């Protein structure tokens, strides 16, 4: 099958270039807010109180979990980019080969200084690949950092939001019950 629609083609190529780990958090967060509370609300096997708590928790968890993932990933990618400065041999055009890459300073712990795997590469390809590498390394560093962020920031925030949405859910039900009894 050949995709001839230019818009679909642009969308596919755009996704490959622009969507990475931080955007994954946003997409997962929005979709989990749409689906998870609905699924928990429809879970008739639970008593009403437990169901309300499960709904409230799914909302709280979707919001805090994905926002903290997003921020951790953006921060980590930024940090990796700042700590992976490099020096290369002089190249003038996109087709010139990058033959050597070295960390600029001792702080650049994420700059690889081995020749194999990275060089020689044409300058254009080198820049593109190195940017992808920084994104990938950032996303992996973020996964490690998540252990700390989740226990110190995300859990208290999830608990706060869960309590808030649970109270809201109960209030809504009480209001509905009152309206029904008045009628």
């Amino acid at each position, binding site marked *: 099958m050949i995709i*001839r629609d230019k818009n679909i083609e642009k969308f596919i190529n755009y996704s490959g270039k622009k969507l990475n780990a931080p955007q994954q958090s946003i997409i997962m967060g929005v979709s989990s807010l749409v689906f998870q509370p609905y699924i928990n609300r429809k879970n008739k096997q639970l008593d009403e109180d437990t169901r309300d708590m499960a709904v409230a928790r799914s909302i709280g968890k979707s919001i805090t979990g994905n926002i903290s993932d997003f921020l951790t990933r953006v921060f980590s990618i930024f940090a990796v980019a700042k700590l992976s400065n490099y020096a290369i041999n002089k190249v003038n055009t996109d087709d010139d080969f990058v033959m050597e890459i070295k960390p600029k300073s001792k702080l650049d712990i994420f700059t690889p200084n081995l020749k194999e795997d990275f060089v020689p590469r044409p300058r254009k390809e080198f820049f593109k690949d190195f940017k992808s590498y920084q994104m990938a390394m950032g996303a*992996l560093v973020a996964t490690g950092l998540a252990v700390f962020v989740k226990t110190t920031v995300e859990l208290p925030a999830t608990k706060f939001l869960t309590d808030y949405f649970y109270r809201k859910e109960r209030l809504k039900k009480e209001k509905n019950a009152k309206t029904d009894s008045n009628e």
Partner: protein
Amino acid sequence: MLKPTPMNRFSNYIFKNYAKDSGKLLVHVGTGVTVIGASAQVGMLLADKDIQGHTKKFLVNQEIITSGTCIALFYGICETTRVAVNRIVERGKVLTATAASYIASLNKENSIADPKAWKNIFTKEEMKKGISYNLENIKYTEIFKNTKDSLKPQTAEAAKKALEVFQEYKNGAGVLSVLAASIFAGNIAGPVIGNLIASLPTKHESKNAEE
């Protein structure tokens, strides 16, 4: 040459495995975060003194089973989808018109590069290795061997460009399929199946209470 440090080895490993394959990165990072998040959530529930008895038991059970199911489903569905889409794309079952045209243009003796003509570029045996492999190793393909010597440099150059266009499409298709699979696995299949399994102890308890 400088002696590679553990950090260098790690950087090289990340570069080789993830820099060119965003789909693979999303599957592995997504699974990692789900595992960490699930462990933290169970810890929070256990430490919460405000939730008591039956509700706490249910929520802890729900979290462990839902998360376990979610992690298994997430990795299973996303990785299967990624590998399947990768195979479909590499075998040329679905191609964009631009990628197909660039591949078709490898035949320099054919002035009109109709996208459909890409099918005549590689042999059946060559296609088993995938489009990327053949474009990277164009010099060993039949089309290159059968090209006039004067046109060979142009064919090699065209293969480079075709590979760039094809990789761009392949990466996009991989990312989109992994995202769609992760939404389905993480936010629909995981919670539905997790709720069903987590409800079993509650059902069992209420049955015992009735007796």
